[in-house]
């Protein structure tokens, strides 16, 4: 498989706060990859950096081997990246069809655009009949589930090669989440690579090929999704001390004095060998940044 996206050792800051510390990951063409981790681990930041909303202060982001770190988002859309941000991010005062039309923006001047637009529209309405019914309704008046459908549909209008999805399930009923995931899968089967962040971990793992686990801005683990499903380390990375053997020791070592401060890595939950490779990957010497 060809490597579509490669992120290597990126650092990202919000003002003076470092959100990512040397994050590396890759997505192959046609792959479906999950990015997991507790809140504040840096998942959304990673996605935003890939899609150009944030620029890394170190490290590189490459699409088809071409450096794209720091390129503004509106130029990356033409390169085939589509990003569905957390909370849908629709244009609330625009109608459903106008939202979709916006998604088609980069392709509106291509040869045969009118036909392509109609075909794409039919396809999307086929996936989401509800949207077809409400095509001239303002997006802001849709229900949560419909809005998320519209978000997915809009992201697909540009026929991306890499679809980035942030928290697809946020605030949605389980049934709708299932439905959206099945559509994502069929999109993926049609050849679009997907990189997704999802808080319903099991849902994410059941639907992806591989997964990365982030913690405190670093990659902690990288494994095939099927293997990760029953990994106790996964629970530990979310719940901290609970469910893992480090329960008592973590609490007491923290309580004693400040001496453990010099070994922050010991205090971090995944200290078993399985997290080793991921850590080394993250610290690989950085290529010269753009």
């Amino acid at each position, binding site marked *: 498989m060809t490597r579509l996206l490669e992120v290597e050792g990126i650092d990202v800051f919000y003002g003076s706060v470092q959100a990512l510390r040397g994050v590396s990951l890759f997505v192959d063409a046609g792959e479906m990859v999950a990015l997991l981790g*507790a*809140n504040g681990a840096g998942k959304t930041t990673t996605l935003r950096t890939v899609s150009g909303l944030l620029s890394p202060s170190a490290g590189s982001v490459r699409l088809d081997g071409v450096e794209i770190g720091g390129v503004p988002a509106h130029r990356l859309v033409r390169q085939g990246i589509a990003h569905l941000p957390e909370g849908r991010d629709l244009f609330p005062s625009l109608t459903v069809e106008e939202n979709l039309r916006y998604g088609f923006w980069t392709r509106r001047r291509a040869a045969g655009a009118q036909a392509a637009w109609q075909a794409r529209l039919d396809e999307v309405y086929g996936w989401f009949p509800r949207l077809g019914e409400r095509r001239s309704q303002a997006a802001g008046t849709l229900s949560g589930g419909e809005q998320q459908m519209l978000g997915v549909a809009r992201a697909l209008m540009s026929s991306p090669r890499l679809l980035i999805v942030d928290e697809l399930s946020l605030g949605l009923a389980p049934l709708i989440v299932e439905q959206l995931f099945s559509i994502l899968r069929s999109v993926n089967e049609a050849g679009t690579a997907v990189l997704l962040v999802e808080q319903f971990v099991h849902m994410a793992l059941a639907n992806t090929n591989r997964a990365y686990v982030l913690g405190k801005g670093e990659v902690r683990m990288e494994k095939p999704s099927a293997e990760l499903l029953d990994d106790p380390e996964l629970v530990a990375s979310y719940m*901290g*001390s609970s469910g893992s053997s480090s329960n008592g020791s*973590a609490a007491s070592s923290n309580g004693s004095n400040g001496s453990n401060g010099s070994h922050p890595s010991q205090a971090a939950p995944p200290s078993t060998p399985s997290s080793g490779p991921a850590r080394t990957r993250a610290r690989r010497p950085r290529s010269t940044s753009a």
Partner: protein
Amino acid sequence: MSAAAVSPRRTERVTGSAASTEAPTVRLSVAGRRLGLVGVLAFVLAFPYLPFVPFSVLGNANVAAQYALVSISLVVLVGWVGQISLGHAGMVGVGAYVTGMAMGGLHVGFPVSLLWGAAGGMAVAVPLGVVALRVRGLYLAVATLIFSWIGQEFLFRQEWFTKHSSIQVSPVGKWDTIPYFPWDDRKVFYYAAWATVVLAIYLMANLRDSKTGRSFFAVRGSEVAAASLGIDVMRTKLAAFAVSGLLAGAAGSLILVGQQTVTPDAFTVERSLFFLAVAVVGGLSSLGGSVAAAFVFAFLNEAFFRVKAFEGYLTVASAALLAIVLLLYRGGLAQVPADLAPRLRRLRVFVDPVLAPVVSWTNRLGDGLARWVGAHANRLRGRLPSGERPTEVVIQSPSALLALLSRLTGGRIKAPRAVVRTEAPLDLGPPKDEEPELASIVSLPMNRQSAEPGSVASVLPFNQVERKPVVMAADRDERRVVLAAEGITVRFGGLVANEDVSLKVCEGEVVGLIGPNGAGKTTLFNAIAGLNEPAAGRIELFGQDVTGLPVHHRALLGVGRTFQAIQLFAQLSVFDNLLVATHQHNPTGMLAHLAVTPASLAAEAEARQTVQRVIRLLDLRDVAHRRVADLPFGVLRMVEVARALVTGAKVIMLDEPASGLDNNETDRLVELIRFIRSLGVSILLIEHDVKMVTNVSDHLYVLDRGRLLAEGPAFLVAQDEAVVAAYLGRAVEHGAAAEAGR
């Protein structure tokens, strides 16, 4: 005018110690400097009578006083409180016309008529302030613009309002004027005008350095944070409008008396924008900058009046100046001395040889004079030896003018707050055997007298203080409830963010509130703090129902908080940020601050000592006098917690305090939370870092999709199947099971 140098002087001091290492050869001695100041003062006082000062220059010096006063009025409102005004000419105009009515109709004389003008300005500013309570930002800008427009088109064209001012008014009153002073003489008026400005600067400098001034800055920085510290945002805004209107009205009064008659042209919308330009060019938050900008614009008046080639370009130049300052040099004139100082220092090599004779001559003369003054001379000269200026003086003195006076008189006139200028070692006693009360940490000086004098462990940073275990009833039901939320439901539009959630925090507990993203934790938090109104349910603090009470009332009851997105006052130093938090323990009011009464000084000294103690305790000394905006994130989190601590709150709510912190900083935070708890302060904690929460909490509540999923002792809850499922999203498959598991 001497106070114009106040703010630059302060910045100079910060860099002063670094500069002195370069050992400049040419510098004024103390006596020489004093002589120089006396010289400047003499020049200012003699100015109208100097033989080479033309009539128009004197006129523009008076105009500068008017500009300066309006600009100060804008500085208070826009610069300090952040309430934009595009309508100051309206207030100024009302001040002028009301003065005219008083003088023409009631035969009030000049100094008293100033009060009429001030009252007039205030009378229109306060209603405008009421508008500002409901709208802000852009809408306030329009509201003030419209106000100015109504003035221009309606009020200032009504005959009954303007008739006394359209003919020459006599500034000499029937009974209340000071005889011997012909106020209509331009020279005499010069003194009156500038005395008014100096008085205004004095009062405003007092206000700035007081509790009132800090509440102004706090409202500008973050209204939410200000309210959470117990500051009544509405009252603060109204007070600012009142003060600003007062000054603007007085300025109008000056304009009328200076010109003896006014036309509506002087108070148009265009004039409003011009006044704002003066304030912006001055730096928008500096009193000294205001005076400097007033001079710049008065100078432009004069220059464009004199040079024929410039004719007609005055307005262009004024507008261009505003544009340049706004776009390229936002600090305005107030910024100039700080920016120029290092550059001037580099130029010293060239300048020094030229200046040397002048300086040494001045020094010799000054020293000679000082010697001649006699017995006091040595003391005067020795007071501030050049090498060892105390760096601690950075703590602002309460009244810039008084401090200056004190310096000029060699300390015979006392700057009232000199007491707290030097950082005396604080005698924070070692933790007492009994459970320490908060009072011992944030206490009044007199309470601390009981602490063991001269103890070695006078001030220990919190993580070196040995903590006594907190004694609590084993059964939670027996503990005293300090915070309770019952059946809280919060809706945003159709979305139910919280549904029937109840929780309580007992005395001395650390209570954690966790849950996956979007579970409604922050919503619940804000409902408790008073930021959003629950559709149903009831909130109690210390047994009192506070459900409908505004944020600052809850703060006054003893609830402190931090924010997920840090809400410190970015433009203030760490020290001043903490000082804002002493607001509720300072009983003095605005009038006391204006007059610097002994009571207000005592309260101020007390507040500063409280802050010093907390700074030592939390080991923030290195950053105490640095601007918050320049500090790293980890420190800011600590400062925000420190600020909540300074309020003396008995319950502190922490909203994701560990987010953005690395492991080391998180550990330190855990230490701090435990320490705060050991003071008997209860803590309600929202946190995503589940490990950290379970580590530090006594009791946990878990929210999921707006409802309470589980509660119980921390170590049990964190291992609860349903909770783990909620975090990992298994609830999708086993939703029913999780529900049943409760």
